[in-house]
């Protein structure tokens, strides 16, 4: 009766699994037992339960009796592993020079890589606390004309219009800027707020500590504060229901306080105010920057949620329709609208008008490339030196092979060695990181972009993972190579020297290393030269002994009379912008009302400006003293503007009328023509400039002082300021200082590139030292014989260094070509730029050759100065 059960199959997977793990001498009998049991259970309980029991039995059968043993590991795996580690460690200790060169190189470059890992972690931490993070999107726009940079802002009506036409879009939230001063304890503090739609809390996961998320942003003039801001203004008091006057934007009632944010977000804000306030402000006659205006694309950020089942592609179609309907060639703007997922914002591509500060992708990529480059240099050292050192390991490889080691095991052994070295370097790298991190955080870009490099457990796990991967990658080539030896030849030492040295590959690696160093050094020297050029350049005006004071909205005339009491002040003027600090103001003007307009930059100054900055007039005269109404109808232009308006000579322009766009058109006479001077961002050359007399737009007071001891003057000025405006802190700087601050960004880049360049050249130098020491060691007998036969020292040194000289020359040629082409790209963006010049190449080459000659020469001289007898004695 039992025979008919033969056609019933137990679960196939379980059977396969069993056959896979069970060893050959048990698979038959246990398999039989299992099947018999299965049939028993099948007849007793039915298929389902029998299947389950079969699985259970199969799993329970896994034990030391049944498991397959790998054929080549008849011995204990753990103890051979211990042996690998032990031998590896002894090798590292024995070859001290090799170990030092490698650990130093690896750990320094690792430390830089660790910084990048931390940086990327920081960037990836943005917006992680937003529960809807995968379904939140925002609109962006870009324009065909002008700069082709995407803008994170869009025209205000777009959000509502798109929602009307596309059902999948919900929870549309608009943001607008709300900035102004808030008075607290007699001091004025800036607040950085956002007007937001009432459904803000539906879309974003901001938790309220107090207040009702449903109603907090409904009423006009309601405001919800960030926890830190509430603390700053109200200390321990409960801020709910209190009022806050923000600049000229009205008085707001506090309806909520947020809990401390659980993480970073790309949206920068101190407070959220109700969007309905903007309508109320417009009614009061305050210009709310063209809300509801399709032509203004720079004031509103729009975020929304895409319902499940709807994709951004479908919405894109709707956006294209809208763009086609509301704009045409003649509109002020003719934009293309795009959709950006929130997960792509930080880290993400570069956008203009960002709602907060995130680091653009290219920056992370650029830094990663730099870190990767020196990592490559250090890894090459390891690969190179291990391959070169292979000779010393041939006997070991031979013995291990004879004892039955398989190739895979030997590869594994040597990879373990490199992992060991790389983990060892990691320890050092973490020590270096302690020094590198504060330096990195001290950079201006760091605070600008709000970098927070935190060492967490996760980051340490990543570090170890990184070190292991690095160990495998660097060790792969040498270990494959070492394990490939034929056992007998290896024992006999009959491996040809040629095969051992692996020259072709090693030469390539050295050339690449030096090429990288050359590119980096040339680049950093160039960045340095460019900065010096910018700083030292004669801009056509003087910055000596001038202090700039930020007026912070205070009246210039009053301050001027106060300051004039100070004995060391020679002269005072006022202006709306400080030249060469990246700020410019644009306007347009016509000669006749119907004429083509001319785009101009403009400055608003008073009659002392030309004297203080030592600007020269080509023709005409300056603004007059105590003649405000006359001055307001007069303008100065520069030579470029003269050209743009089509005047033949400076004298032609004098007395001519210009119509200047300024709300209403300002009609003014040209009273003077200035010699061109550079007032703009250094990327740009000198452009047409108009100088107006316009006291209401003054932002800075500029003082010419006679003294040299700055601190004393600053103290005196500070004292006057405190009485004059107790609410604000004095914001004063020297002219040069203010420009330096603006240029700091370039210094940051110089530091980074320079540091990497120094590291790369030291790593490459160390590598060269190791490799040349080795190569020369291998030729010691040859050197000795040549010496015995009467060769002179000079010819021997030349013989030993010839191949290195060839390699370096190739590296120099390749490196310079790459450096030239690469650096031209950014250098060409500057209107005022330094040139590559022969000097850069010359000094880089000189430095590099110096390093090479020192290392190779040292080794070569050591080789030639040994007594031939000591090396030839053995033979």
């Amino acid at each position, binding site marked *: 009766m*039992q025979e008919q*059960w*033969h056609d019933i199959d137990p679960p196939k997977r379980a059977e396969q699994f069993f056959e896979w793990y069970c060893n050959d001498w048990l698979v*038959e*009998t*246990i*398999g*039989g*037992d*299992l*099947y*018999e*049991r299965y*049939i028993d259970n099948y007849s007793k309980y039915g298929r389902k339960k029998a299947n389950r029991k079969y699985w*259970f*039995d199969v799993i*329970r*059968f896994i*034990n030391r*009796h049944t498991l397959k043993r790998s054929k080549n590991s008849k011995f204990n795996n753990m103890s051979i592993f211990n042996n690998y580690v032990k031998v590896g460690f002894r090798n590292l200790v024995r070859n001290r020079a090799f170990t030092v060169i490698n650990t130093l190189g690896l750990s320094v470059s690792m430390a830089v890589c660790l910084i990048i890992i931390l940086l990327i972690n920081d960037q990836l931490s943005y917006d992680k606390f937003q529960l809807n993070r995968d379904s939140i999107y925002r609109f962006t726009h870009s324009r065909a004309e002008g700069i082709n940079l995407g803008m994170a802002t869009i025209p205000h009506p777009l959000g509502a219009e798109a929602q009307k036409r596309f059902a999948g879009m919900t929870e549309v939230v608009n943001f607008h800027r709300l900035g102004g001063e808030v008075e607290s304890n007699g001091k004025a503090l800036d607040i950085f707020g956002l007007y937001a739609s009432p459904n803000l809390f539906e879309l974003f996961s901001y938790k309220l500590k107090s207040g009702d998320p449903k109603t907090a942003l409904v009423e006009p003039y309601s405001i919800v504060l960030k926890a830190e801001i509430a603390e700053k203004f109200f200390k321990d008091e409960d801020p709910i229901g209190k009022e806050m006057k923000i600049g000229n934007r009205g008085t707001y009632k506090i309806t909520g306080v947020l809990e401390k944010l659980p993480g970073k977000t790309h949206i920068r804000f101190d407070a959220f105010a109700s969007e309905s306030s903007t309508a109320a402000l417009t009614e009061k006659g305050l210009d709310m920057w063209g809300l509801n205006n399709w032509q203004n694309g720079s004031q509103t950020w729009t975020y929304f949620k895409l319902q499940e089942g709807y994709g951004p592609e479908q919405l894109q179609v709707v956006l294209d329709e809208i763009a086609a309907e509301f704009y045409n060639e003649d509109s002020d703007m003719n934009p293309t609208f795009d959709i950006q997922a929130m997960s792509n914002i930080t880290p993400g591509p570069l956008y203009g008008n960002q709602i907060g500060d995130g680091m653009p992708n290219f920056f992370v990529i650029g830094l990663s490339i730099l870190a990767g480059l020196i990592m490559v240099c250090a890894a090459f050292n390891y690969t190179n030196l291990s391959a070169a050192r292979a000779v010393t390991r041939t006997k070991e490889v031979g013995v291990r092979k004879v004892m039955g080691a398989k190739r895979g095991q030997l590869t594994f052994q040597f990879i373990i060695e490199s992992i060991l070295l790389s983990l060892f370097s990691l320890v050092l790298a973490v020590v270096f990181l302690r020094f590198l991190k504060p330096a990195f955080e001290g950079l201006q870009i760091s605070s600008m972009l709000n970098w927070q490099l935190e060492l967490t457990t996760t980051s340490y796990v990543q570090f170890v993972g990184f070190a292991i991967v690095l160990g495998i990658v660097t060790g792969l080539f040498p270990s494959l190579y070492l394990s490939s030896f034929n056992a007998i030849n290896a024992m006999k030492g009959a491996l040809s020297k040629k095969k051992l040295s692996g020259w072709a590959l090693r030469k390539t690696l050295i050339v690449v290393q030096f090429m990288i160093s050359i590119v980096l050094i040339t680049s950093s020297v160039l960045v340095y030269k460019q900065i010096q050029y910018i700083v030292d350049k004669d801009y056509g005006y003087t910055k000596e002994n001038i202090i700039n004071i930020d007026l912070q909205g205070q009246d210039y005339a009053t301050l001027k009379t106060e300051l004039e009491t100070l004995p060391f002040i020679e002269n005072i003027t006022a202006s709306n912008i400080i030249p060469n600090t990246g700020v410019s103001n644009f306007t347009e003007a016509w000669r006749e009302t119907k004429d083509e307009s001319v785009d101009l930059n403009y400055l608003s100054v008073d009659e002392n400006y030309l004297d203080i900055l030592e600007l020269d007039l080509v023709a005409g005269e300056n603004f007059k003293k105590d003649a405000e109404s006359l001055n307001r109808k007069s303008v100065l232009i520069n030579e470029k503007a003269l050209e743009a308006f089509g005047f033949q000579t400076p004298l032609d322009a004098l007395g001519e009328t210009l119509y200047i766009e300024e709300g209403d058109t300002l009609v003014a006479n040209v009273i003077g023509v200035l010699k061109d001077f550079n007032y703009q961002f250094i990327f740009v050359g000198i452009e047409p400039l108009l100088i107006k007399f316009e006291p209401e737009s003054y932002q800075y007071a500029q003082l010419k002082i006679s003294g040299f001891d700055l601190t004393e003057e600053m103290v005196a000025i500070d004292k006057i300021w405190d009485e004059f405006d107790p609410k604000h802190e004095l914001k004063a700087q020297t002219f040069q200082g203010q420009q330096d601050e603006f240029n700091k960004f370039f210094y940051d880049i110089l530091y980074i590139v320079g540091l990497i360049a120094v590291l790369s050249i030291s790593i490459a130098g160390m590598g060269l030292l190791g490799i040349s020491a080795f190569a020369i060691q291998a030729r010691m007998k040859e050197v000795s014989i040549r010496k015995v036969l009467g060769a002179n020292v000079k010819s021997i040194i030349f013989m030993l260094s010839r191949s290195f000289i060839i390699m370096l020359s190739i590296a120099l040629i390749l490196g310079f070509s790459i450096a030239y082409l690469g650096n031209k790209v950014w250098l060409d963006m500057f209107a005022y730029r330094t040139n590559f010049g022969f000097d850069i190449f010359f000094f880089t080459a000189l430095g590099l050759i110096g390093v090479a000659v020192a290392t190779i020469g040292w080794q070569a001289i050591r080789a030639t100065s040994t007594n031939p007898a000591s090396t030839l004695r053995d033979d």
Partner: protein
Amino acid sequence: MNQKLGEFEEIVLLFVAAQHEAAYGLSVTKAIEDELGRSVTMSSVHTALYRLEEKGFVESKLGDAEGNRRGRRKRIFVITAQGKTALHEARDARMRVWDMIPDFVMKFV
């Protein structure tokens, strides 16, 4: 020689002896389940048998393929002399302990 016989091993060994020349993994498992009413997994019985073999208390050989086995042979376990000694010793040890029990203790169960 001084191999110890574990409690579970003793039971398994007893059944191997009982099912003379016909004891294999599943038959012992079934016997323990049926005769003693203990639930055991097949793998633990197998493990015990291999361990007994390592200790020299049983010997194994490949047997027939009767039953629902799809032609796969059984591994038949047979008790060795050493195994018999071990069983005797185990029983003696037990009996000694039995003897230590005062008569009255067991009388009024």
